């Protein structure tokens, strides 16, 4: 097997065999191809670049040319088991809308976000007084595609607001294996460079694929706000 991104390894672990998967921003289809071969998933990609679309087609993948911001309405409600958005949520015009769309289309969303609360960011901003340029976010402010940056805390707040449950979370940092974390843990907002979330709608009963099965003995965050909430779509 070829060398692949560390988040791919984590996603590969999370996804149930034979699941229906939508990869938003699937690029050349590397992840979908991997999931198809290793997990026999029924995969579908959404990709904006013509070169990416051609590459996916050549791999025999089903791919729709489109934009995660605009074209998620192509897909019917609950058409997939998983919707994957890897490292591009912060590049969306409307991350909040995209996130709720992902969980309309799929039962679970796998989303990774670079953590702007990481100590490197904080130190860089504190020491230099300029927008941080780090290995996770290397572009200058005037050319960065990352227009909606957030910290781990910001992201879990948004999940709460959208009535989403964090089924699992893992920290990813530069080539090291994924480390399961509690995204609300006080230290994680300092030390996690990128976080990968497995999310679902809070109101859903999900007997299969419990987070415990996915992450072994790791203690997972308890859903906050015990009061039953109105299910938002």
């Amino acid at each position, binding site marked *: 097997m070829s060398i692949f991104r560390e988040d791919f390894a984590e996603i590969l672990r999370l996804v149930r065999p034979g699941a229906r998967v939508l990869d938003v921003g699937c690029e050349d289809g590397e992840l979908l191809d991997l999931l198809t071969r290793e997990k026999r998933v029924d995969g579908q990609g959404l990709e904006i670049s013509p070169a990416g*679309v051609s590459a996916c*087609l*050549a791999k*025999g*993948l*089903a791919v*729709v040319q489109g934009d995660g911001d605009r074209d998620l309405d*192509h897909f019917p409600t609950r058409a997939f088991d998983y919707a994957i958005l890897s490292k591009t949520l912060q590049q969306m015009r409307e991350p909040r809308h995209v996130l709720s769309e992902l969980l309309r289309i799929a039962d679970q969303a796998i989303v990774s976000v670079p953590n702007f609360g990481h100590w490197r960011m904080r130190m860089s901003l504190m020491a230099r007084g300029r927008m941080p340029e780090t290995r996770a976010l290397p572009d200058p402010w005037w050319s960065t595609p990352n227009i909606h940056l957030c910290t781990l805390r910001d992201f879990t707040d948004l999940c709460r607001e959208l009535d989403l449950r964090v089924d699992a979370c893992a920290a990813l940092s530069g080539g090291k294996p994924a480390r399961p974390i509690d995204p609300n843990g006080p230290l994680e907002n300092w030390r996690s460079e990128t976080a990968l979330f497995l999310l679902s709608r809070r109101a859903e009963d999900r007997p299969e694929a419990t987070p415990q099965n996915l992450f072994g003995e790791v203690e997972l965050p308890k859903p906050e706000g015990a009061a039953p909430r109105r299910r938002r779509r």
Partner: protein
Amino acid sequence: MDAGAEPGQEIESGGGTWRFPANRPLRLDSGATLPNLEVAYKTYGRLNETRTNAVLVCHALTGDQHAASVNPATGRPGWWDNVIGAGLPLDPERYFIIATNVIGGCMGSTGPASADPKTGRAYGLSFPVITIADMVRAQAMLIEALGIETLLAVVGGSMGGMQVLQWAADFPEKLFSAVCIAAAPRHSAQNIAFHEVGRQAIMADPDWRGGAYEAAGVRPEKGLAVARMAAHITYLSEPALQRKFGRELQRDGLSWGFDADFQVESYLRHQGTSFVDRFDANSYLYITRALDYFDLAAKHGGVLAEAFRKARGVRFCVLSFSSDWLYPTAESRDIVRALNAAGCRASFAEIETDKGHDAFFLDEPQLDRTLRGFFASTAQARGL
């Protein structure tokens, strides 16, 4: 059936005219039946032993079965010889490619110029009105007659793309994959409007004679040429026309009259006059009518996704061109949305080009790459 390879042809080709017996008429959507059905077709390549490598190519409004070989009517190369051929996305070495002439056409399949068995003379306007579904039904009869149970792919652009969609709705069990290029799930008011201009131009020509021009030994050439000129504008984009002709003049200075001063006028006139040499005016009426009647969702309670409900096993590829204003990208996206809603496996790409609707006949590297990738992976999935 007069089959056999043509001499001087690089790729192996065959075909002829399939004549269905009198007890197998074509039942039409209108309720009428078409006796003595004839379907003209060409084939490229060889059917493999497992009969799994057959690809049906559907032509556009004024196309024909000569997709990849010299057209005997015009002496010009086939209309899709940049897609079908050695080393091309549809390589006859690998696939058995079948192209038919649609019914209602004028290149050998039963149409308004065919002899009505009742009178022995050309049908003219007594030819029944046909639909895209009727064309597809005739193709399905031919495919069956050729001993092919499943097509590896059905592929077509423009009206050909509509036939592809109709195939998916009516014969999904006979398809492994479907490629729909620059098409729409229905004809829009604007599409119908342009066709009506064309039809009125033909019918306004005194030589049309209520459709019975053949008996009178004349042809409504002027009307048909004007119809072609109007339609041809819709196949091109504004930037492409501007780039090709701008305001360039034919000669130095204006004529201060109504000659073809501008190059674009001369070009359109040429398009019109060369078209009448190869096309029948009544066929033009009937085929444009079939297109106008096309609304795939209509038979399915107005819900396009319902049309594809049985096509879940078919691999779809939908392609559009960014500068196509005849069947714009939004129409293809509607198709894709419906396919997704029906749970079909669908791919979609918008090819970036400024060449308009006709880009599917032209050398577009992205189109080539996309088709190549799709056909290769489809063949692999089929075990070829």
